């Protein structure tokens, strides 16, 4: 295959230009989707992490089962189950709804584990000092423990957020018109791989700065241990 043929099949600027309006639409959907599911996951994760500070066995074990179940199920399985299975239970969900629920369950469990580790990394004396000045448990959590917890696991939180944004691409499977879905549409109409390549480039340009940042943070974290 000559370079020209390759360029025509994969880097066809003409086709990319034609496809660009729907790719832009897809990108907008991907961004909106991320703006929906990241906060949703963070809220779910915070709730799980706060619950994990309750030592009672009636909270502890169900919580662990919940978290491990949703960490064990691949997110796509969860999504397909909700989208294709729930209608049989009389629950017809739009794609957005199915994605929101699936991501809430899955990414909530991951954020929950990260925040739990963060809370555990804050010395017990912090909570005690705060309580000794009359702060309630909730206030001590909000003003003293959580800020430190979040800071201690910031690299993990950023890393998980990157994964969540990447994961929004599975919404294409339930026909939510995000970036990958639109690129697939354009590719099947044009019989040309260039729209897919364009989508990949968009993802890369969008997420590469985050990857750079993370690899710095992670190196520093590990190096601190040497």
């Amino acid at each position, binding site marked *: *295959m000559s370079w020209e*043929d*390759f360029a025509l*099949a*994969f880097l066809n600027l003409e086709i990319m230009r034609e496809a660009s309006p729907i790719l832009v639409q897809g990108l907008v959907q991907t961004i909106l989707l991320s703006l929906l599911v990241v906060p949703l996951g963070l809220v779910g994760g915070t709730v799980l992490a706060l619950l994990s500070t309750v030592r009672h066995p009636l909270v502890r074990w169900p919580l662990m089962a919940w978290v*491990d*179940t949703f*960490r*064990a*199920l*691949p*997110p*796509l*399985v*969860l999504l*397909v*189950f909700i989208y*294709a*299975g729930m209608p*049989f*239970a009389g629950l017809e969900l739009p794609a957005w709804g199915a994605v929101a629920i699936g991501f809430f369950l899955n990414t909530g469990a991951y954020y929950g584990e990260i925040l739990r*580790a963060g809370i555990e*990394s804050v010395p017990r004396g912090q909570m005690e000092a705060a309580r000794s000045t009359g702060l309630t448990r909730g206030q001590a959590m909000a003003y003293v423990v959580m800020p430190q917890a979040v800071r*201690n696991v910031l690299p993990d939180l950023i890393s998980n957020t*990157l*994964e969540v944004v*990447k*994961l*929004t*691409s*599975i919404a*294409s*499977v339930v026909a939510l018109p995000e970036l*990958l879905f639109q690129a*697939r549409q354009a*590719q*099947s109409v044009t*019989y*040309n*791989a260039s729209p*897919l*390549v364009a*989508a*990949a480039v968009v*993802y*890369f340009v*969008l*997420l*590469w700065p*985050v*990857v*750079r940042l*993370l*690899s710095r943070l*992670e*190196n520093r974290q*590990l*190096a601190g*241990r*040497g």
Partner: protein
Amino acid sequence: MTAWERFADSFLNARVAAEYLPKIVDGFRLTVVLALLIVVSGLAAGLLLALVRSLGVRPLNWLIIFVVDLFRALPPLVVIVLLFFGLPAAGMQLSGFASTWLALSLVLMAFAEEIFWAGITSVPKGQWEAARSTGLTFVQTLRFVVLPQAIRLTIPPLTNRTIAITKGTALASVVAVQEILGAAHAGVSFSFNPTPLTLGALAYLVLFIPVVVFGRWVETRFAWRR
């Protein structure tokens, strides 16, 4: 029929379950094989890249860093789709299985390289100097001094990352591989009953809950965070 019976009849229908169980079991085998192949090739490639990087050849290192960043930034599903639907445009047809294997191996390679590299650089320079001063070669130093220290540090993040990426085998269903999710989804369309999806979800839990619990154990066993 009570609500529960109606629910059980659709989601846990014995007749449908008996009919599709063999397909799910076949899918289960395929998932396990695919996952194992990805783990072996991904980790091996990642380790190899990290070792090459430790040689310190500038242009080579830039290339490695670019490839690693690329596969950390791209959603795995985008890579799979690009390989499966894009390569035919270059006159090359990879099967769905091969596309998924290659894509997820590349992704795991990228993450593994980053983690191995962080591990290697976390071993203080003094260790290298001490070993080389006793006459050990570069390779011997790596093999007997640096890697044993680096690997301890890298095991927990590596385990978690490997688990997350092998869960991505469910993405193969998008490119028509009859692994668990593919088989389950097909079963639903044939039987007009969601029981195959329930079986599929259970199969993933059977496969991955032990893995997730193992990951938890590794994390406490090699506790290195703080």
